[in-house]
């Protein structure tokens, strides 16, 4: 990454731009994180451990992790399909479909929440079809997964798409001329190239799902031990003015987010090294 010409700093504004950036990052991003760190550490290890391993908290981890896992599985499959279709085929409405992918990022989570619960509720367009089949989505664990899946739809698509676009057609033609079948070309040529982006996108989708609040609370039912996610339990503790518990639980989500961020970054670094040796 070190380019010699950057070091010469011929362009003015280094002090100004970096000064503005660092001051802002310190005040808006780092300071609140430090405040929460202080609040959490002042709890002491025993109290902290008791809160984060309480039965109700552990139940929220189980609910959150399983729903996020299910949502990520859906998005891994759907994301790969969408990225493939959008990059590979020319068909009417392709650009429209491409633009639509960003809807879950542009639409506020609360709006997504009330929309999904209305659609999947007993009288909704989808619910009235699914409930006679015995499939309960709204106010059930499956509803949480649906809400998480909706809000993280763009991640896999938007990370895989540019990589897929960059694959030169001649690699595939070489494979084809050597007698590879379409599935072999995908499995042995394309898949290894898009795997890092695919994993990074899936990790991002999973991370987003773990912390999701707005879309989930409307559809979840929010029953302790059954359909209560961790972010909701934090909110409930705040409502009860139980700030130590809120701090401890929030730190669990924060650490999970940092770990997943680290995983994503490692995948990207691994991918870059991978690309360089090619």
């Amino acid at each position, binding site marked *: 990454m070190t380019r010699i010409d950057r070091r010469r700093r011929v*362009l003015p504004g280094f002090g*100004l731009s*970096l000064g503005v950036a660092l001051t802002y990052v310190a005040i808006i991003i780092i300071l609140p994180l430090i405040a929460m760190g202080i609040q959490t550490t002042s709890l002491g290890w025993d109290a902290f451990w008791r809160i984060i391993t309480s039965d109700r908290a552990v139940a929220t981890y189980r609910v959150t992790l399983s729903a996020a896992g299910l949502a990520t599985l859906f998005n891994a499959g759907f994301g790969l399909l969408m990225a493939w279709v959008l990059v*590979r085929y020319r068909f009417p409405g392709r650009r429209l479909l491409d633009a639509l992918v960003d809807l879950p*990022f542009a639409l506020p989570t609360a*709006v997504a929440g009330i929309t999904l619960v209305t659609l999947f509720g007993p009288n909704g367009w989808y619910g009235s079809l699914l409930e006679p089949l015995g499939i309960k989505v709204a106010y059930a664990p499956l509803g949480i997964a649906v809400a998480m899946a909706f809000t993280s739809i763009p991640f896999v698509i938007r990370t895989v798409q540019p990589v897929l676009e960059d694959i030169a057609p001649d690699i595939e033609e070489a494979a084809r001329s050597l007698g590879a079948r379409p599935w072999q070309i995908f499995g042995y040529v394309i898949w290894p190239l898009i795997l890092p982006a695919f994993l990074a996108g899936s990790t991002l989708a999973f991370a987003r799902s773990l*912390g999701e609040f*707005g879309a989930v609370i409307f559809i979840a039912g929010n029953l302790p031990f059954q359909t209560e996610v961790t972010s909701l339990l934090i909110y409930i503790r705040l409502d009860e003015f139980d700030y130590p518990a809120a701090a401890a639980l*929030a730190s669990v989500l924060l650490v999970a*987010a940092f770990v997943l961020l680290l995983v994503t970054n490692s995948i990207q670094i691994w991918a870059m090294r991978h690309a360089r040796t090619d």
Partner: protein
Amino acid sequence: MHAPTEPRHYLLIGLAMAVSAIFLVVPLVSIFAVAFSRGWEVYLGNIIEPATLHAIWLTVLAALVCVPINTVFGIAVAWAVSRYDFRGRRLLISVIEVPFSVSPIVAGVTYLFLYGTQGLFGPALQAAGIQIMFTVWAIFLVSLFVTAPFVARELIPLMQAQGSEDEEAAISLGASGWQTFRLVTLPNIRWALLYGAVLTNARVMGEFGAVSVVSGNIRGQTNTLPLQVELLFNDFNTVGAFAAASTLAFIALVTLIVKYALELREGT
């Protein structure tokens, strides 16, 4: 890219379109369908309801405050990171990404522990008679946190790809730093900048979890639109909630249209 030729191509396209219809198109349409289910007059009545109007005003105000600030920040970070090499450059890029991966609820909690009465600055603020938590200021601050990465994320890859040759040429021809930025850099990055600002705007207006924690939810005073949507929905005023939600869905649509238009310009 090619036109589909074999059955499996059509199958894949059909599957992608079907799932997109179920999870993207129908939800979007249903927002407006419910909002207008009792006709135009009821819809307009719901929008000009004083509490909803006030929420709209507060939401617009938050955007007016936060979008310019985070646009300036985004430009500053992108300039520093893409034009110079310095120690901690990669760390700075990672730290900017933090708000993007933090749960909105956790974002709200961190601000509560900074400016709340029991927080780090709580006692000092109280002594000075300044109330930040549960006021509009808390809404502004937490919205700034949540949307801090958006403009920078759009600008950094673009400015790194463009390189600094244009700016260096301008400087060597005697342009001042400010002239170089205004006449050379800004025209090069204006579309990415616009899209970053539009994304920031959509998120500021739509932020729910973080704002929910710090706003205190005082009806008609610190309720932004997403909170008003929740309030109406929990009051079993479904049509009213969807009317308020439709304004946010409209903003989301505008955001998508801007992106669509910018991509057409690029001709990708």
